[in-house]
């Protein structure tokens, strides 16, 4: 069943983030900052850039191998969302028709170049975001954001979301199963039943929220959620941040791929 499958996917992503590798052991703050820096750098390239973006693929490649993350799993996720990027760029080839470069004798219009550039940027940013959540536990990311001065209320929201998404999805799963087991063929799968299902789920959620709030009050909750500090930035984190920064600047300022291309051209 589709619903079950999606749920196990979510669970798998979560399980990945609790592995123990070099990447997983880095402080969440390091990873959040590095990912953010990478995304900003990639997005800052001009719209016809292609060669300059190529070296950045080294980042996801490195994390895939060091973090022991299954490549296909992440790529499939990126594919699913890629529809949005395609829609953003799909009209470029129609509007921007002047020839910008010559590929082995075939003239390529500026529209195609910028379309391709959008796809590359999309792939890089999506990939790094997904890699961040598959190499860092969700609570870890939230604590990192908290230390980077993101307002408390967003952090609590995210943490509760993470805590209860699994509970809620399981509850929905049970309801969907109960419906499917008693609906033979098409009857019982109609929209009206679906609406009822959502309604019931909504009411159950409110009741649960009430019970959770009660549990919080019973343990002295009075408006603010406190956390115990942990995670110290270690030497490895500073080294990693420094190297990432340097490499990003290098890749951003020098078009390495063109440079290597020109050098090889000169030799032969």
């Amino acid at each position, binding site marked *: 069943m589709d619903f079950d499958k999606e749920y196990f996917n979510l669970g798998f992503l979560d399980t990945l983030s609790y592995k123990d590798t070099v990447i997983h052991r880095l402080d969440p703050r390091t990873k959040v900052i590095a990912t953010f820096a990478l995304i900003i750098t990639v997005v800052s390239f001009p719209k016809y850039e292609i060669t300059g973006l190529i070296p950045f693929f080294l980042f996801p490649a490195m994390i895939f191998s060091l973090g022991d993350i299954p490549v296909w799993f992440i790529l499939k996720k990126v594919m699913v969302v890629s529809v949005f990027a395609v829609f953003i760029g799909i009209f470029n080839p129609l509007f921007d028709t002047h020839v910008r470069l010559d590929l082995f004798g075939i003239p390529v219009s500026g529209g195609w170049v910028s379309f391709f550039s959008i796809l590359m940027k999309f792939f890089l940013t999506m990939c790094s975001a997904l890699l961040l959540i598959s190499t860092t536990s969700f609570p870890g990311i939230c604590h990192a954001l908290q230390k980077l001065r993101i307002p408390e209320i967003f952090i609590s929201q995210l943490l509760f979301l993470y805590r209860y998404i699994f509970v809620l999805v399981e509850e929905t799963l049970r309801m969907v199963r109960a419906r499917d087991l008693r609906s033979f063929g098409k009857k019982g799968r109609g929209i009206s039943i679906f609406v009822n299902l959502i309604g019931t789920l909504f009411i159950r959620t409110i009741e649960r929220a009430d019970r959770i709030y009660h549990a919080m009050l019973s343990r*002295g909750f009075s408006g603010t959620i406190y956390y115990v500090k942990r995670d110290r930035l270690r030497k490895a984190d500073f080294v990693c941040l420094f190297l990432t920064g340097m490499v990003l600047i290098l890749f951003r300022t020098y078009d390495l791929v063109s440079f290597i291309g020109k050098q090889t051209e000169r030799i032969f």
Partner: protein
Amino acid sequence: MSHHIIDFKDVVFQYPDGTKALKGVSFRITHGESVGIVGANGAGKSTLLLQVNGYLLPSSGLISIGDLELTKKTRQEIRRKVGVVFQNPDDQLFMPTVYDDVAFGPLNLGMSTEKVTDRVNFALQTIGCLDLASKPPHHLSGGQKRAVSIATVLAMEPDILAMDEPSSNLDPKSRRDLIGLLNEFKHTKIIASHDLDFILEVCERCLVIKNGLIVADGTVSEILTNQSLLEENNLELPLSLQKNRMR
């Protein structure tokens, strides 16, 4: 030691929709006692537990915990003394990791980081789940969730432990572990349950509640052997006391 006493005097409670859940309940539980509350579905067991830590305030009547009378003002103080473990661990465990959850109560009491760390480690050690500290609750088994729920309350070092259906959804081994765990605690305990064998092993005294009234109050051996009383309340003899049940 007068401060571990629960005293109910003519407690009446009516829900906003008009349902009278408690119709004048009086009892007194003294220091170190462990008391089971049994009764049919809807008899008022859970409502009674919600009164003990002041989540619901009685419509009339008097509740005192130790020397404190339960009012809106003393609620916070009373919640410190009475730890409640709810029926569904998914409601009880709302923080992203086990450690954060156990630390939640002590942090709210305004303790220093070192003290909180001590308390959390101690509570997790008591229930034998120290190695689960960094796990998120959805990676735990049902028995582990229940144990951690108890740790979240233990970390606050309450005088009184109140539990709603602690043995529900547990496999026999986890249930057995829980019985062992509870029998080690010297707290005043108040346990609402349908699992009469559980009550038999953990409690010394038993209250039977029916339609919002207490209909029997006595030692466990007295009440849980009284077949007619139990059957009047949709209950039955504890399985361990039923004879010839294999035939």
